[in-house]
Every structure is written in structure tokens, then in C-alpha cells.
């Protein structure tokens, strides 16, 4: 049996596809992981709610007042939009409808690589190299799918490389993971990068252009080097990923 397991694993590692063991384990684990993730999330939310109740009460009154103001403004803008629809905005919304909503249910058990497991796999239409985003920006890309789950390589993993553009000057670079942050590398020396510049995806294998990666936190501009680089603070909070959207390229 040991030899069989070893052979199956070796064969899968060589082919780069999930082994039968991986398919079986993830298909069973998706249920328990979903339950544990939901429970942990509920417990965390309940604790946070109790802790923040007094502040929430004050915020609630404030937000009600602002909501009234925003609602009237929204009505006015809706009327304006109906009169002159923004074609680009409508196209973006239409593109998002192709996405597959998923929930984060697991992480690398050894925390060695920056990967997450989501509860949608090939049965739901997720494919290798699909991009994954959440409300804040780019999360990563799908590196492996099984029938009911997928593994997503986070933007911060050392093996993650995404074509990126500094939004202000359209300077190109490669966003590479450093385990905790992202480093924008191979940026032309004549680019005038500044702290706070937004970095978005360039057109690539997994993403369309324009999705927010993060903002520049520090610039490394060495004299005499061919390229400069920058440290990018990711827009996404990778420590508390919940709902994500798999986008088909």
C-alpha cells in the first residue's frame, strides 16, 4: 500500500495534476472545512459584535443620517445615469457577472506557501489560471482544481508573478510576492514612482487590466541599476479572506 501511495503521489507531482488521493481528500475535506470555517467566522463575528456594541450604537445613528443624505443623492445620480449611461461602467458590471462566487474554506496546513482553498472547483466551472478577486482587489490565481475545491495562489506567495501597471504614469512592472507583501519589479528607471501610487493589473493570463493590486509603500531606486522596484502594500487583507470571486479570463 505504501508503494502504491508513493507511486500515485509521484505520478501526480510529475504530471502537475491533482492525484487521486488529492481529489478524494479534498472532496471529503470540503465539508468539514466549510463547517469549521463557518463556525470560526460566526464565533469571530459574535465576539467582535459584542465588543463593538457601544460604538456601533453611536455609529448607527450617524450612519442613518448620512444614509438619508446619500439616498437622495443616489436618486439624483440614478436619474443622471439613466439619461446618459456610462458604457464602460456597464461593461465592467457585465464582465463581473461571469464570476463564480466562492468562500475561503482552508489554508496551507503547514502555512508554508501562501495558498487558500475555496469551495468551488471544476464542477462549478473553475479552471486553472482563473483570477480571484474580492471587494478590495486582486487576491491571486487558481493553481489547482479538484471537482469541489480549488487552490488559489495568493498574490503574496513567492511564486506569484502578475503583470502590473502603476496607474498614474502607466509604468509597467511585474508584481512578485514576498510572503507578506508584494514587490513591483522591473520598472523602468525613468518612471517617477511615489509612495501612495495605485498599482493595478496589466493585461495578462489571469486578469484583465485595471484591477487594484495595492499601493506603493516604498520605492527602491538604486543608482546604476537597469530597473527600479517598489514595495506594494496589497489592497486585500489576506489574513481575513472570506467571500471571493473567481473571474474567467
Amino acid at each position, binding site marked *: 500500500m505504501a508503494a502504491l*501511495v*508513493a507511486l500515485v503521489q509521484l505520478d501526480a507531482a510529475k504530471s502537475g495534476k*491533482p*492525484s487521486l488521493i488529492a*481529489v478524494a481528500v479534498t472532496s471529503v475535506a470540503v465539508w468539514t472545512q466549510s463547517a469549521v470555517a463557518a463556525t470560526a467566522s460566526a464565533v469571530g463575528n459574535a465576539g467582535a459584535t459584542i465588543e463593538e456594541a457601544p460604538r456601533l450604537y453611536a455609529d448607527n445613528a450617524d450612519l442613518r443620517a448620512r444614509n438619508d443624505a446619500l439616498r437622495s443623492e443616489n436618486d439624483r445620480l440614478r436619474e443622471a445615469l439613466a439619461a446618459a449611461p456610462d458604457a464602460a461602467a456597464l461593461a465592467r458590471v457585465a464582465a463581473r457577472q461571469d464570476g463564480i462566487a466562492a468562500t475561503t474554506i482552508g489554508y*496551507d*496546513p503547514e*502555512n508554508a506557501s501562501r495558498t487558500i*482553498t475555496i469551495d468551488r472547483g471544476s464542477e462549478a466551472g473553475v479552471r486553472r489560471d482563473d483570477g480571484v478577486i474580492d471587494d478590495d482587489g486582486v487576491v491571486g490565481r487558481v493553481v489547482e482544481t479538484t471537482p469541489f475545491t480549488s487552490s488559489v495562489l495568493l498574490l503574496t506567495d*513567492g511564486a506569484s508573478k502578475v503583470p502590473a501597471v502603476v496607474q498614474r504614469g502607466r509604468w509597467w512592472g511585474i508584481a512578485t510576492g514576498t510572503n507578506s507583501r508584494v514587490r513591483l519589479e522591473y520598472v523602468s528607471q525613468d518612471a517617477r514612482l511615489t509612495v501612495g501610487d495605485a498599482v493595478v493589473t496589466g493585461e495578462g493570463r489571469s486578469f484583465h487590466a485595471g484591477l487594484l493590486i495595492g499601493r506603493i509603500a516604498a520605492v527602491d531606486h538604486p543608482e546604476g541599476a537597469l530597473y527600479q522596484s517598489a514595495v506594494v502594500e496589497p489592497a486585500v487583507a489576506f489574513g481575513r479572506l472570506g467571500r471571493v470571486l473567481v473571474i474567467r479570463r
Partner: protein
Amino acid sequence: MNRLAPADVARTRAFWAANKPGETAAPAYVPDPPVWWHVALALAVALTLQASLAPFLALRGGTPPLVALLVAWYAIRTGSLRGFTFGLLAGAAEDALAGTTGAAWTFATALAGLGAGRLARTWLADMPLALVPGAAAFVLGRFGAFALVLQLEGRPLALPVAHLHAVLWQCALASLAALVLPRAFPALLGKRH
């Protein structure tokens, strides 16, 4: 298994100290396999905890090595061959849940189980405190094997290098567990000569 005479035990230790394991060498830990479904349940719980709560349980990046400790414990209780086989299965499950490590944890955990099972037959049983550095060595050795297998698979060395500091924290957690658990639950390690 019958209790050995002190002279036999001393002879066994002498064989191992000289690194010449003779055929008459007797084990220090008597094979004492736990109930199989206890082990299966413990593995399922350890895998679920690690895979679902890893970032929340992590101490400076190092998750409590529950699966590794379980394999080490099973190897001590059953011997090197079973330790190897159980390590293979537990590692395969870890690779399945990690998704990006190929078969690296499979072989690393199997080799670590083999080593723990073999050492448990010798001086580990004579010195309970040896379990403390032993647990750290187990986690570190397993990680070394993981890095080696990744290299053999043609993957970059950047992953294990970046993860090394977290593994040192895992070693500390494993040592703490090896210090506390056998004292809290003496029956955990099974029978000894």
C-alpha cells in the same frame, strides 16, 4: 512482549551506542499500536484544524505541527515501518490540502516517521527528556526532507528558505508539546522495557 533482563537492555543500548544494531537488539519501546480509528480520527481532526485555522493558530508564522506530532507519536508507538506508512498517508493528505507542494510533504513526513520509529526503539525511550530536542529535530528533519523533495521535483528553493523562520517556531512548539504531553498523559507513549 516479555520483559527483558537488565543485562539485555544494557547490551541493546551498547549495540546502538556503537551504531551496530545487532539482530538480538531488543526494542526499548515495545510496539503498542493504538486503536486504528482513534488514530484516523486524530489525523482528521489535526488536518482539519491545521487546514482551516492555520493563520489563526500560527505563532510568528509557524503553525502548531499537529500532523507531524501525530506521526511522530504513532511511529514511537508502532515502529519504523508503520511510522513510514502512516507518514506517507498523512503527508499525502497534507499535500492534497496544500495544493502547491506536489508530493513533498508525502515523502518528507514518511521519512520523518521512519526515523522517529527507528529512534524510538533505542535511546529515546531511555531518556524522556530526549523527546524534547527529539521533537524539534523531527520537525526540522521533516522540513529538510521537504526542501530536498521540492528540489528533486524541480521547484525553486525560495519557498523553504522563506519558510525557515516559521519552521523554527514550529520546532519550539513541538518541543513544548513533547515536554508537557508525556508528563500530563504518561500512557501516551505506550509500553517500555
